[in-house]
């Protein structure tokens, strides 16, 4: 029977949650790296016991950890993230130029075929790669070399490259998202990039054809149909049917279309999940109710999923990297909250249960489906 391993990054350490395929009883291991912010932990599809973790602290900076045994033991890897060539400037909050400065790794995306190759999205926004299992990291400078880069401006969380999607059917095609520059796509493995933000509309950006500047919170795709992308923007849930060339809104009947995570069912490419948040000035759930919304029609028509989730006095948030799905049938859906709960639904969202309730604030959730 398959096993499930959930990798949870929190503000005060990492946790590994494991279960069998029923997803009812869970073992909890952690905290690993207690007291440190763990922005992301992700396993290699090519070697599922190979895990990579981004550990950081305002005091001590960035640390990269690697496990070769599924998270039982860890070793410290290289943490030297140096921008390639002339550092250059982007725009600061006040609109003045500011030199690029490395802050932390937000997202680690292991290669599907090589356990030693991992992509890293960092703040200030840049795209790095290791090909030696995390010992050394090199920037792929084409992204920051885009002519729009000096005009990129940070979102409230910083100028962060937070999403990396590797297209399984087009070698060399990678999508990334930056708050708040927007979506970019490379078709040549990172040498050159194009902004992919046509059709996005954002308050404060009067130019409807603005190439960059949109605060994209998250994008997601289904492996079987990588030309279709789903996006949770600051406000608005969006969809692209042409690999990011254009976007249309699919917020439909959502109670609010502000939010952070978005993900796609493992076996149904048109089944999409979001967690609406009241507003960008409040950053908590509307009406005190924790509701995941599911569309089975690729957007526009959404149903609230509430069975097993608190429906009163709940004011948590769900951050952009804190939702994931497993590969079992029925598909499991997982998310973590800023209140420290990690929830699972073993039936694609119909019923939910808390795996843990009292972790530190959850930053990221990833799921591995193991044989």
């Amino acid at each position, binding site marked *: 029977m398959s096993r499930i391993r959930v990798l949870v990054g929190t*503000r005060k350490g990492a946790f590994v949650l494991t279960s069998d395929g029923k997803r009812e009883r869970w073992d909890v291991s952690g905290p690993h790296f207690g007291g440190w912010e763990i922005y992301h932990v992700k396993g290699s599809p090519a070697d599922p016991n190979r895990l990579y973790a981004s550990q950081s602290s305002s005091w001590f900076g960035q*640390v990269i950890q690697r496990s070769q045994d599924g998270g039982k033991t860890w070793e410290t890897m290289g943490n030297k993230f*140096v921008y390639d060539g002339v550092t250059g400037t982007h725009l600061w909050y006040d609109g003045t130029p500011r030199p690029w400065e490395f802050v932390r790794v937000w997202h680690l995306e292991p290669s599907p075929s090589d356990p030693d190759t991992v992509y890293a999205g960092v703040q200030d926004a840049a795209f790095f790669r290791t090909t030696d299992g995390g010992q050394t990291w090199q920037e792929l400078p084409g992204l920051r070399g885009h002519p729009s880069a000096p005009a990129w401006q940070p979102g409230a969380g910083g100028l962060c490259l937070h999403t990396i999607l590797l297209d399984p059917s087009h070698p060399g095609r990678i999508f990334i998202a930056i708050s708040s520059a927007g979506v970019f796509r490379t078709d040549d493995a990172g040498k050159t990039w194009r902004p992919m933000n046509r059709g996005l509309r954002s308050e404060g950006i009067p130019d409807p054809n603005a190439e960059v500047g949109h605060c994209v919170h998250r994008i997601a795709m289904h492996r079987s149909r990588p030309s279709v992308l789903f996006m949770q923007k600051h406000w608005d849930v969006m969809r692209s049917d042409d690999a990011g060339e254009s976007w249309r809104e699919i917020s439909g009947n959502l109670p609010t279309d502000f939010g952070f995570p978005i993900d796609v069912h493992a076996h149904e490419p048109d089944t999409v999940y979001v967690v609406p948040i009241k507003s960008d000035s409040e950053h908590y759930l509307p009406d005190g109710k924790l509701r995941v919304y599911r569309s089975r029609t690729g957007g526009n028509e959404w149903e609230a999923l509430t069975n097993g989730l608190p429906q009163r006095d709940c004011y948590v948030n769900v951050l952009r990297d804190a939702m994931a799905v497993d590969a079992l049938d029925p598909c499991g859906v997982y998310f973590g909250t800023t209140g420290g709960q990690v929830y699972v639904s073993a039936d694609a969202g119909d019923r939910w249960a808390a795996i843990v309730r009292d972790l530190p*604030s959850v930053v990221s959730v990833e799921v591995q489906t193991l044989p």
Partner: protein
Amino acid sequence: MIRVVLPAHLRTLAHVDGEVKIHVEGRATQRSVLDALEASYPMLRGTIRDHVTHERRAFLRFFACERDLSHEPPDAALPEAVATGAEPFLVVGAMAGGA
């Protein structure tokens, strides 16, 4: 032998308990002590000072012999008591609040 006291999180990262003892060739300075520390404990590279500029990270300070040495030049001699091992060189994390 020079004694270095690290903050708790860096002791954990370096897998050490208590003080770290390191041997420094030549004159004991902030730079030579930190070079030797990082050579013995490579996982500490980048956590105390920047990889490239070698500037002290903003939320860390250096103390010894009840003196704040944080703004001393990196090649200035450390107090004799540190050089002889009578007193430790302290790497101290700022007691900032935060979450």
